[in-house]
């Protein structure tokens, strides 16, 4: 029996092993940029050295910056939650009702065919410059993959499992909660992960279309002042936000799909 501590260091070691090539690659890339910028081969205004970017990230602890980060985080998280709930709901409805599927499917696909970038100014015009237009943007970009993932997850459930539970006298509600929903979870989570990252894209695009704050707004204003180091720093923070949302969903996945083989050992 291994202690929980021992297991988590094992996991850390395993993920270090897994990630070192990409970490090394990024490190080399950063070093190259640093050298190019410091030697003056490329002007600093155009390509800021990585240390400047890092400096401007560490200078971001202030309340001014945190307000912007908080705004984007709020829009992304709330938007994603709305999008995920809508995606799940629409997915379940489309699975269970042919009529609703016929009604909703074209609408869902069409809504996705309108580029998000084009929707941003419209939504801002309708909903104003505060967080709600961006929250809706985040919801709109993240609900689509969740809908698709939910429908396909529900569709490809082993029908022997549903038959079996019916053979115990279960009604369709029990079949849904006990089998179909749980069997669909791996697919649903795959789509949630995609949606979680996309939601940050949605809110940032919204902010760039007109806003009083947020990381997208911060990015535009640093570009306006030709402060490339700060712009790059904002991009890094956006990526960090997207990654942490992805990581949170993955963590939730591990907790919820506890029965997955190798859920505790990386599947090895």
């Amino acid at each position: 029996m291994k202690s929980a501590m021992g297991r988590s260091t094992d996991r850390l070691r395993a993920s270090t092993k897994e990630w070192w090539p990409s970490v090394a690659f990024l490190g080399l890339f950063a070093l190259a940029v640093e050298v190019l910028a410091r030697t003056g081969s490329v002007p600093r205004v155009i390509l800021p050295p990585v240390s400047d970017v890092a400096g401007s990230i560490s200078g971001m602890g202030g309340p001014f910056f945190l307000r912007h980060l908080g705004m984007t985080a709020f829009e992304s998280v709330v938007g994603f939650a709305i999008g995920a709930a809508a995606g799940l709901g629409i997915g379940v409805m489309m699975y269970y009702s042919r009529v609703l599927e016929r009604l909703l499917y074209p609408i869902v696909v069409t809504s996705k065919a309108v580029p998000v970038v084009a929707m941003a100014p419209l939504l801002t015009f309708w909903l104003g410059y505060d967080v709600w237009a961006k929250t809706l943007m985040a919801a709109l970009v993240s609900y689509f993959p969740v809908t698709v993932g939910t429908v396909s997850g529900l569709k490809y459930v082993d029908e022997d499992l549903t038959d079996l539970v019916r053979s115990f006298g279960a009604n369709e509600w029990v079949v849904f909660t006990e089998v179909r929903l749980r069997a669909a979870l791996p697919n649903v989570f795959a789509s949630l992960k995609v949606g979680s990252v996309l939601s940050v894209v949605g809110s940032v695009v919204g902010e760039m279309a007109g806003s009083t704050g947020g990381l997208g707004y911060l990015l535009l204003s640093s570009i306006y002042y030709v402060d490339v180091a700060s712009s790059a720093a904002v991009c890094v923070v956006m990526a960090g936000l997207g990654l942490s949302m992805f990581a949170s969903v993955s963590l939730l996945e591990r907790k919820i799909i506890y029965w997955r083989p190798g859920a505790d050992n990386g599947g090895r």
Partner: protein
Amino acid sequence: MGARIVVDELTVRYRLKSGDLINALGPISLEVENGERVALLGPSGCGKTTMLKVTAGLLRPSSGRVLMDGEDPSLPRRRGEIGVVFQKPTLLPWRSVLENVLLPLRIRGDVDGRLERMAIDLLHAIGLKGFERSYPNELSIGMQQRCALARAMIQSPKVLLLDEPFASLDEMNRETLNFDLLRLCEPNGVTALLITHNVYEAVLFSDRVIVLSERPGRKVTEVRVDLGKERDPRVLESERFYEHIIRVRKALRLSRLEVAG
């Protein structure tokens, strides 16, 4: 306590993706007496699983009907009187072994300590002691199929429907499980239908072996098995056992000739 099963002029057709109809089974008629154990022997694809699903009340017949003590099988199914073991171990991966066995009881109501005790005893009887808290993916296929069998028995069903439950197991495992199965069936007087490809298994388990034709499966012939109700491993060393094997093999061969001619 079992139930009497009557299969009356049953046929099942499936609609394929291409839109064509395929005759999967029948017309077939047969009767299984209360407490009788019957083995169904037939070539792959002849409609055995299809027939089992109709008998379990999970699939509507295209014509004809199945009655269980005079009722449509969906009624005893809802009362939890039918135990089913499918061709592959269909355990719910998110439930532990014990919880899988308790599942039929949970669906039908509350589970008290006594029922839980019963499930644990059943698991011990079938060789899964110490695995109560394991998850299905931590078990071998044979162990999973044992668990599925325990689950089919937990409600003390009147009717037990077994679809090649041990087909994916090695010979040794298969033999022990066959005797475990017999031990579980005997005291209850359950009516049982065992689908199998294996002549030995068919004779060992049943009071009667029914031979089916190629798809769409019809009853070709049947062989009575007079080995008594109680059977232990010594049966396998008796001449009478092999006489029955030979009789079933002959019936199989003749059925093929009959179908070909």
